[in-house]
């Protein structure tokens, strides 16, 4: 629900990891919704501040729906969605969006795959037409596939293999989860990419790209009735098809601390402690996920929150220290404590520092002042987020894919506001236990010498 806070230069990494899970519930003035006969839901939020619109299609199919041997296929298919249909040639999709003065992109997460265009509002109809076309009529040409799988492997090299912290999180996911598919990286294991075929992509497309497994979100300077008519015109003719059963794949209870180490070229060690925690499943009855959100804010919600103030500023144990938690996701939750020790301090000392901070919460609780501060930030963010149409559309989509109705967004904020100091303390006591903990450590390796200083022995 909230972006990671204050974690220094590796914010990008965690943001990438967590962004899919994060969405701060908003106060909507006017979401309108209509469900087409084929099951497709269309959600429209009118925002008349500027003559633009954002159009998104969300599919309930992410890497958690993949099976062994074809990991990465959700993301690969996302790439292939730009490779044409019988009526739109390969690469034409992006050309048409560009010609419309638009920007487009797509993203795949563990929970979903989503596509979007930001356009001048007059071009919305064309975008709906284009998305509806590729919802059913994708070409999946073997030659295009052969090139694109290489691009995806380069993407993996760029964003995972050569990023020490990304590798750390990839390995940690694979250790923290053993049965649940959250153990698999979204981009897929390299060997699965090497062995992937166009038929794998086709199977994935046939299985999940259906109007009854998707929803559309449009935010912008539009009239909702007009949008519903356009949606009916273009998406309406696509017949619903049966979806495969989704297996629950519940993660067995963890019964002891798990530890792992990743070695990679780097300067600073990194420590990540990940505790198994719940996420929102029942907006009204749940308490703990809200308490954990507020705990995250108290530990790491601003520059003088506990982790930064005590671990970085006062004790100088860490050069950076932060948390990560998202209360809304399709799969199971993790609460991360993460940081890099200062020079002369060890990862073990930082881990101990994190444990001490948690122990203080368990023993002494949190102050009403800290809770009030977290609430104030929550309230202000409700206004700030209205500055971006894109952010508003993202929030609707992320809530929906996590199984929380977007209409519950106000209730989510209220539930967060209602959290008491006792609830925060109780949640810390209940969930921050060693048996539910995975600890991952990045063990930095020095860079080899540059060629000029390379010893002669390496010549052969």
């Amino acid at each position, binding site marked *: 629900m909230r972006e990671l806070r204050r974690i220094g230069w590796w914010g990008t990494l965690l943001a990438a990891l967590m962004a899919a899970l994060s969405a701060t519930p908003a106060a909507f003035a006017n979401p309108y919704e209509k469900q087409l006969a084929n099951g497709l839901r269309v959600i429209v939020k009118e925002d008349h501040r500027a003559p633009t619109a954002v159009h998104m299609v969300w599919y309930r199919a992410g890497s958690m729906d993949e099976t062994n041997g074809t990991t990465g296929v959700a993301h690969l298919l996302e790439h292939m969605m730009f490779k044409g249909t019988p009526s739109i040639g390969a690469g034409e999709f992006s050309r048409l969006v560009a010609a419309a003065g638009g920007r487009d992109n797509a993203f*795949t997460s563990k929970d979903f795959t989503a596509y979007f265009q930001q356009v001048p509002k007059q071009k919305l109809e064309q975008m709906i037409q284009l998305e509806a076309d590729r919802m059913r009529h994708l070409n999946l040409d073997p030659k295009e596939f052969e090139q694109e799988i290489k691009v995806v492997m380069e993407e993996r090299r760029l964003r995972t*293999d050569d990023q020490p912290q990304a590798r750390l999180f990839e390995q940690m996911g694979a250790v923290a989860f053993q049965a649940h598919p959250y153990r698999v990286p979204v981009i897929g294991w390299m060997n699965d990419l090497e062995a992937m075929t166009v038929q794998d992509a086709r199977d994935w497309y046939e299985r999940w790209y259906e109007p009854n497994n998707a929803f559309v979100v449009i935010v912008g300077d539009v009239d909702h009735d007009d949008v519903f008519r356009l949606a009916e015109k273009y998406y309406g003719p696509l017949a619903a098809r049966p979806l495969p059963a989704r297996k629950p794949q519940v993660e067995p209870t963890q019964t002891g601390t798990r530890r792992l180490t990743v070695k990679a070229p780097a300067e600073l060690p990194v420590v990540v402690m990940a505790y198994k925690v719940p996420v929102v499943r029942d907006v009204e009855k749940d308490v703990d996920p809200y308490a954990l959100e507020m705990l995250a804010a108290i530990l790491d919600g601003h520059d003088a929150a506990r982790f930064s103030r005590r671990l970085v500023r006062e004790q100088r144990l860490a050069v950076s220290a932060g948390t990560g938690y998202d209360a809304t996701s399709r799969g199971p939750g993790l609460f991360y404590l993460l940081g890099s020790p200062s*020079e002369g301090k060890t990862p073990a000392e930082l881990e101990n520092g994190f444990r001490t901070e948690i122990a203080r919460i368990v023993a002494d609780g949190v102050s009403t002042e800290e809770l009030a501060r977290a609430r104030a930030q929550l309230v202000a963010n409700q206004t700030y987020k209205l*500055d971006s149409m894109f952010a508003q559309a993202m929030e609707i989509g992320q809530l929906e894919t996590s199984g929380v109705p977007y209409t519950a967004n106000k209730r989510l904020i209220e539930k967060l506001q209602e959290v008491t100091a006792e609830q925060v303390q109780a949640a810390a006591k209940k969930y921050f236990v060693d048996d539910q903990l995975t600890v991952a450590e990045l063990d930095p390796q020095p860079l080899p010498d540059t060629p000029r200083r390379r010893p002669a022995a390496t010549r052969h």
Partner: protein
Amino acid sequence: MKLRHLLSALCLCLLATLAQAGVNIQHWVAPSGVRVYFVENHDLPMLDVQIDFAAGTAYDPSGKPGAASLTQALLDLGAGDMDETAISNRLADLGALLSTNVDMDRASVSLRTLSAADKREPALDILRAVLVSPRFDDDIFVREQARAVASLKEALTRPESIASKNFWALMYPGHPYGVHAEPEKLAALKRTDLLDFYRSHFTAARAIVSIVGDIDRAQAEALVQKLSADLPKAEALPSLPAPTLPKAGEKRIAHPSAQAHLLLGLPTIRRGDPDFFPLLVGNYTLGGGGFVSRLMKEVREKRGYAYSVYSYIMPLAQPGPFQIGLQTKKAQVGDALKVTRQVLATFLAEGPSETELQAAKQNLVGSFPLRLDSNRKILDNVAAIGFYGLPLDYLDRYTEKVEQVSIADIKAAFARRVRPQNLVTLIVGAE
């Protein structure tokens, strides 16, 4: 979350130079001497204020790279009667967001706050203190210096950071744009270096204030005077020197990464240069237009050599770079470089086709409303106009300037600005 073309999205941001008809920018010079750019907008009950100083990394004193960044980092870590914890706690209590940023030319301090007076005024008081009475406490200086050194050492293990640092050094030999922080020099800085830098660079004469949001003109004028009246006074400093163009050359640096990082480029134009529009429109076809660019088609789509490949023009206070970048697995560095150079050479020789030119204009003109559809975007654009002294009607005339560009203009501008004899190439991680 995997973005299909994250890097090209970033490039769009870099290129998202200023556009929009209908943004009414009010401009005045405050009694303090600070220049002000104000866009009144009451749609949302919030306010954005940004102060940009000519105090970027290019102004690092000779032999003291890192001084500008470290000065900026300490501004909000103790000011007036507030220590760092008080500043952060008060901002959080108000729901206000204070952020700082440094690039080559600019040091920026930004505040986002709710516009209700009981939130806005205390938040502005904190911003004022940060600007006019930063403490640079010795103890905090020592701590932040150590963190900055650690962070820099970490960055210098990464191929992308190594590439960037060495690429700028290659493009700008002997020029401030080519000097980057080094751990040893950063560690040798003294607290007095920061104080000196602050006192000489954070003056009203070197500052512009940009304001977007829910206040009126009278409130804006009062706000600016409050923020800027007590800024340091100092003698004017010499402006940045113009760079001399480098000689073409190629440098390779080893790295154990899976991919090599390739950068090609050279210094081109200042902000406000008339060649900007032909270069902008032409670069759209070459490597700026995301998936419809020639580089993307040839390097990625046809051959699968790279996930990200782009080119952009980044005008600065002094001539900023034209840059091409890509990453590819080590074994195919030679092939990818060859294709990239061919695409560039063909483009320099022939320019875009008529169809490509029209496509570029269609996008640059058509996407115009997207460039200013939030307060944040308006603020970014207004701040750039103010800082670089662009005409106030810059946004109003943007699409017209794009429309006027011809193929001949593009070829001539590229011939003037992107000369092969000055193009440097850097490869980190080649086999």
